[in-house]
């Protein structure tokens, strides 16, 4: 177990190195110059050159990369070109909204996905099953920015129940903070529930077809216990994979939802730093997202072990 864990953690190193190289090359190959963006469209070539020098952008690419990598290994991701704050701090600041949004969105997705999936499986081919299928299809098909804007129009503009956009940190009161996050969590949770509905249904149907379920029923065990105690637990492994992947994707920043609701999260940070070519921030964020992705996958693999004692590493 320990060896497995160490191995997986060590595998993180080459993954991150590849990510770092690819990201570095991509952003430097993309046209666009942070100095020119910062100075505005009326800047003189000399001014652009001076700023490029100050930012270290006139050095050879390899030198820039080695310098950056050296610092990154020591945990220093550099300074943002624009706000002149440490990138690590910037990422941390933008993480809170994203973590809160991800937790809320995945809760919404699970609260809808698991019950709807179970109902679908239990009442297979009934109108309930058809209804949940329709819900899942709709969730998967609706573009998230459209859903987000529709929720804003309904709940903020017409009904006036919730704020239309923006963010309050939990430090200003958890209730206020959650009010601001509710609509984005719904906009993000509803589409993400689709996959969970379908996976729960098919996974549960597979399990229910097993002999031990038939045995349980033959023993006279109640249907509720059969489904929730015997079947669902065994059906959870594939569901957990989907939930883990979804959560990892959400933690990488729900770009569209964060933009629509103007949440200062990781997704927003990625978009704005790409648009203004804030190289240190782009590199830092992508590296962090890659790390989280790998770590959450590892966590999911470890959870298999908790849910299903037969799994051995």
């Amino acid at each position, binding site marked *: 177990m320990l060896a497995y864990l160490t191995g997986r953690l060590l595998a993180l190193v080459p993954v991150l190195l590849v990510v770092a190289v690819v990201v570095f090359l991509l952003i430097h190959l993309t*046209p*666009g110059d942070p100095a020119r*963006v910062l*100075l505005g469209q009326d800047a003189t070539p000399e001014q652009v050159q001076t700023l490029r020098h100050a930012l270290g952008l006139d050095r050879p690419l390899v030198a820039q990369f080695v310098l950056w990598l050296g610092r990154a290994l020591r945990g220093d991701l550099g300074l943002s070109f624009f706000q002149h704050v440490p990138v690590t701090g910037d990422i941390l600041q933008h993480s809170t909204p994203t973590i809160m949004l991800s937790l809320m969105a995945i809760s919404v997705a699970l609260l809808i996905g698991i019950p709807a999936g179970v109902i679908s499986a239990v009442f297979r081919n009934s109108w309930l099953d058809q209804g949940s299928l329709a819900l899942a299809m709709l969730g998967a098909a609706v573009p998230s920015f459209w859903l987000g804007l529709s929720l804003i129009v309904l709940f903020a503009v017409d009904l006036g129940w919730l704020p239309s956009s*923006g963010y309050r940190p939990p430090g200003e009161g958890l209730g206020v903070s959650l009010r601001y996050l509710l609509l984005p969590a719904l906009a993000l949770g509803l589409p993400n529930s689709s996959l969970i509905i379908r996976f729960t249904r098919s996974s549960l149907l597979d399990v229910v077809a097993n002999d031990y379920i038939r045995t349980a029923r033959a023993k006279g065990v109640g249907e509720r216990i059969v489904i929730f105690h015997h079947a669902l637990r065994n059906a959870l492994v594939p569901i957990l994979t989907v939930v883990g992947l979804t959560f990892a994707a959400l933690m990488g920043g729900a770009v569209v939802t964060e933009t629509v609701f103007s949440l200062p999260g990781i997704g927003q940070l990625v978009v704005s730093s790409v648009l*203004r070519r804030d190289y240190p921030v782009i590199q830092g964020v992508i590296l962090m997202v890659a790390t989280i992705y790998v770590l959450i996958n590892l966590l999911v693999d470890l959870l298999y072990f908790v849910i299903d004692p037969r799994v051995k590493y």
Partner: protein
Amino acid sequence: MQARKVLESLLIVLVIAVLAGSLVFSTSAAPRRGGALRIAEIGEPLTLDTVATTADLTSIITLPIFEELFTFDANFRIQPMLAESYTQSKDGLTYTFVLRKNVPFHNGKEMTAEDVVASLDRWGKVSPRGASVYKKVESTSATDRYTVVMKLKESFAPLLSFIGLPNGAAAIMPKEINDATGAGPLKQYIGTGPYKFAEWIPDRYVKLVRFDAYAARPEAPNGYAGKREALADEVFFYPVSQVATRIAGVQSGDYDIADGINQDAYAQLVKDPRVTPGLIKPGTFLTFFFNKKQGIMTNEKLRQAVEVALDMQPIMKATFGNPELYSLGPSIYPQDTPWYTTAGAAMYNVHDVARAKRLMQEAGYNGEPVRWLTTQQYDYMFKSTVVAAAQLQHAGFKVDMQVLEWAGVLDHRSKPADYDLFTTSHGFVPDPALITVFNAAYPGWWDSPEKNKLFDEFNQTADPAARARLWPKLQELLYTQASLVRPGEFYGVVLASKALKDWRPSYWLVVWNVPAVK
């Protein structure tokens, strides 16, 4: 007779009552203080150093913080702001600025001549606009505590317009901050304005609070000039990048003002009882700018072919929709300004494909692709380019439209080998000398000897009447040399909550003298 007397006295009583009532009304109508103004902006500012960039968003957010020696009134005439008065020597080479006394900075220190000298000198180095002005500046010095003397190498008539423009601004900051900052990033935002900087949380907001010791000018408010009073306690600028979210936020009452509204939403918003859409006039002009340094468009005839091929009405109609939101016409300046002129009209909105084809032939055009840079980041740039490109193709041009992010456009357009045309726009500026496209270093490089000579003459002529006579020649040259295509002018849309009183749209939002809703 008796009845008439009664009527008369009744009338007198009535008049007195009305007068008294109006008196009471006028005292009770003192503007409300307190609360917060919440403004949804198009995004996150790149920097709050208003000197170092010409980005409009930075100008808007820092306008209540920093002030300049001069500013503009509602008719875009120069008015003193931090300056009390100024004199100009006979030869036009020496300007003497007398400063207002007892004007405190946000850090409590009084503004004096040494702060102004340090600020102007930094502006001359760091600001894209200041750098071009300082090529003509011999020296700037303080002769006493409240007097600054600026000596020029050559006469430069638009000097005060440059110093007064709140964009790439000659913002006055304390000397210590100028010295400590130099060409590096500005870290403290200390000005003399009615609001002081409080907090910037990236991607959440920039917060300003009232500066209680603000020294206001005595004159009545007029445009950016006159008395500035911070009525709201706080001003928040929120970055809300989605326009639909900005609109919804004003409708729901979460924001008081939303900037950068898309033109196609205008018709619907006019009917909405919760909001007031306002148009920013004078408008911004759309430009298709030619690369005159390298490539096929160095040929004037070919540029003229593009110019005469285009039909501006469909370009503007498809881009901005509602006819209230744009206008056609050759004049860069609107009718009520001294700069209005139809010079060059013969080459504007010609829409003569046969003539374009002739010009293409004379230019020896052989179907080389016209590489045209545009972006979807600004919807109007993309739409107008699509329509114009289709018209050019109809006339026989081969167009290679390259759609990039704005940062990509900025990058490529500075490289002469990369393009033939790019799409952009130019906001209203109070003096033609401030129009960047006349600057030979501006991408596209309009560097013709005739233009340079005329532009120099225009800048060196001090007499306003003589300058007004020179300007039509410059505008005409812009069309005859086809340095750019100017399809027309459009008006930005700003949305305000109906509950917001005494607020008027302007190119750079004015947030002082505006009482908050909440």
